[in-house]
């Protein structure tokens, strides 16, 4: 396997919520642990899919890696350098190599810029050593993402959602970055357009040798595009492995439950859904020990007392659970045998 391009160690992002009167704020402070001690590696040339429910910290993780938000604690190594120690100037230079594709194609493009100006900004901000032909460079990018170069003079409001998302991709890839965070790039699009964008991303990844962190909440989408998949729950990564392992032999009860909710067209293949009781606990007040224990059918006292450590159940398959499911077990069977 390729060496890791990006390595995250014990990354934490806490948000402080102040309630009410600021004179007694000391007592009212609540800490939301949006990212709670996350460590992971992303290897050169791979796509790591990141899934989880809304509010579990996936997007926050992506933004903290790019330092669009400042992490509370931890380290992010990009090409073996701790980018959290970078000053503003070094950070701006780093932006060339790390980019982000946004979820909302409506809000992420400046409404007063033409498409050409939006992409051209990238070249203007990072004046490259040699003079490049900006216009032809922009048109090349537009063609690369499958847009007419005639769209050069259009404004974002004149384009459809899918076209706008292509512009967002062109902007992110304009400077030929090594690493891209795709923050739910298809969830705001029609289903028919989603597959086009996914295929475009896969083609681009192959052609340009991109390394990608692909954040999504749709499991089908992630399965299609990812080499490895990480599952997040309440600010922690609970399971991470190669895509096929995750989908065929999930080791964490939460992953197994998520998978059982994926609808299947073929009726004969339809799985029994595992429905968990209760809601996701508030991240401001997460359960002790294992965060998932309040909804987990297998939870015991140990889960309440101890935070489970990441353990390798199979080659390259990590899970943080005291009672990981075995390779031939499915949660459904375990639950019914209890």
């Amino acid at each position, binding site marked *: 396997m390729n060496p890791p391009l990006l390595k995250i160690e014990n990354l934490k992002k806490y948000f402080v919520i102040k309630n009410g009167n600021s004179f007694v704020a000391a007592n009212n402070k609540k800490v939301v642990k949006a990212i709670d001690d996350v460590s992971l590696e992303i290897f050169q040339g791979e796509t790591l899919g990141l899934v989880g429910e809304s509010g579990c910290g996936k997007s926050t993780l992506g933004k903290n890696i*790019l330092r*669009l938000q400042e992490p509370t604690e931890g380290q992010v190594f990009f090409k073996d350098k701790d980018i959290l120690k970078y000053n503003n100037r070094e*950070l*701006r*230079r*780093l*932006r*060339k190599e790390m*980019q*982000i594709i*946004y979820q*909302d194609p409506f*809000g*992420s*493009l*400046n*409404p*007063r810029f033409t498409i050409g100006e939006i992409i051209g*900004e*990238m070249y203007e*901000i*990072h004046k490259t050593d040699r003079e490049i032909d900006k216009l032809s460079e922009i048109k090349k990018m537009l063609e690369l993402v499958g847009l007419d*170069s*005639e769209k*050069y*003079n*259009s*404004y974002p409001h*004149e384009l459809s959602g899918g076209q706008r998302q292509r512009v*967002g991709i062109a*902007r992110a890839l304009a400077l030929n970055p090594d690493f891209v965070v795709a923050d739910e790039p298809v969830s705001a699009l029609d289903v028919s357009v989603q597959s086009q964008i996914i295929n475009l991303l896969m083609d681009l990844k192959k052609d340009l040798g991109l390394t990608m962190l692909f954040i999504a909440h749709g499991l089908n989408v992630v399965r299609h595009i990812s080499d490895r998949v990480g599952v997040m729950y309440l600010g922690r990564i609970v399971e991470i492995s190669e895509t096929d392992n995750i989908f065929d032999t999930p080791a964490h009860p939460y992953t197994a439950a998520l998978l059982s909710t994926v609808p299947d067209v073929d009726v004969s293949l339809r799985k029994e859904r595992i429905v968990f009781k209760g809601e996701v606990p508030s991240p401001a007040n997460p359960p002790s020990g294992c965060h998932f224990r309040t909804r987990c059918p297998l939870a015991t006292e140990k889960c309440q007392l101890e935070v489970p450590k990441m353990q390798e159940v199979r080659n390259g398959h990590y899970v943080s659970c005291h009672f990981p499911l075995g390779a031939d077990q499915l949660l459904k069977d375990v639950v019914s045998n209890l």
Partner: protein
Amino acid sequence: MNASTNINVKKKDILKKRSRKNILLQRLSRNKIAYVSLCFLILVHIIVFIGPLVWKVSPTGLQDAGALANWSLQHPMGTDDLGRDVFSRMLYGGRITLIVGLAAMLFALLIGTIIGACAGFFRGYVETVLMRFTEAMMAIPNFFFVLVALTVLGTSPVMVVIVIALSGWMEIARVVYGETLKWKEYEFVEAANASGATSIRILTKYIIPQIIPSIIVSGTLTIAAAILTESAISYLGMGIQPPTPTWGNMLQDSQQYIWTAPILGVLPGAAITIVVLAYNFLGDGLRDALDPRFVKK
């Protein structure tokens, strides 16, 4: 791509841009008072700025007709207490009054936009210092501030402009501050940050262009306030000094003759009132026209 499609694209773009402006004008024209005000103000500016090129009577030279002459063909508005042509003085006075208003507005916009945008964009200590300073300035009675400042700094036209601007930028700063806070949260601003743009670039190319409509509205209202302030301080003898005419000091000159020659006071007074009113109506109309919620009305 061949040349003909290229031309087509450009044509389409021009049409698009023009239609955007048309929408604004259309909405403005639906507001009758604002539209009439706009036309009236354009007319007043043309008369005041081009008029003196045609009407070549000196505003300060004494005329043969003598003092307080009635209106005639040589002097359409008569002469004042010293025998100067009132029509010429109205034109030159209007020129100065409007220039002072415009210049003070531009200067106030500059200060207000910089302070408001920086406070909203950088937050933290910058925000606290700048916005509390703005609020402190608002707490000082406007007129008191202007009079004291002019007494200390002198009453040259440039000083008058600066002092009026310094007394009127706070509202603009607050409007710009609020808008900056709003636009800062948009994803395209974060995207610019992710692209490695500097703060100054983000402010000038991404945030301030979005705020320009609001700035125009406050600017229009600020002109009205600036003209009023200039007239008031001129009336008190603290503004631009005679013999240079302004509508304000013409009003002051006329007060001794209010019973014998009321027209001397009525003309500059009415001019100030109507122009200020028109600017206020225009400002309100523009605000409504730029507000997307008014589309369906």
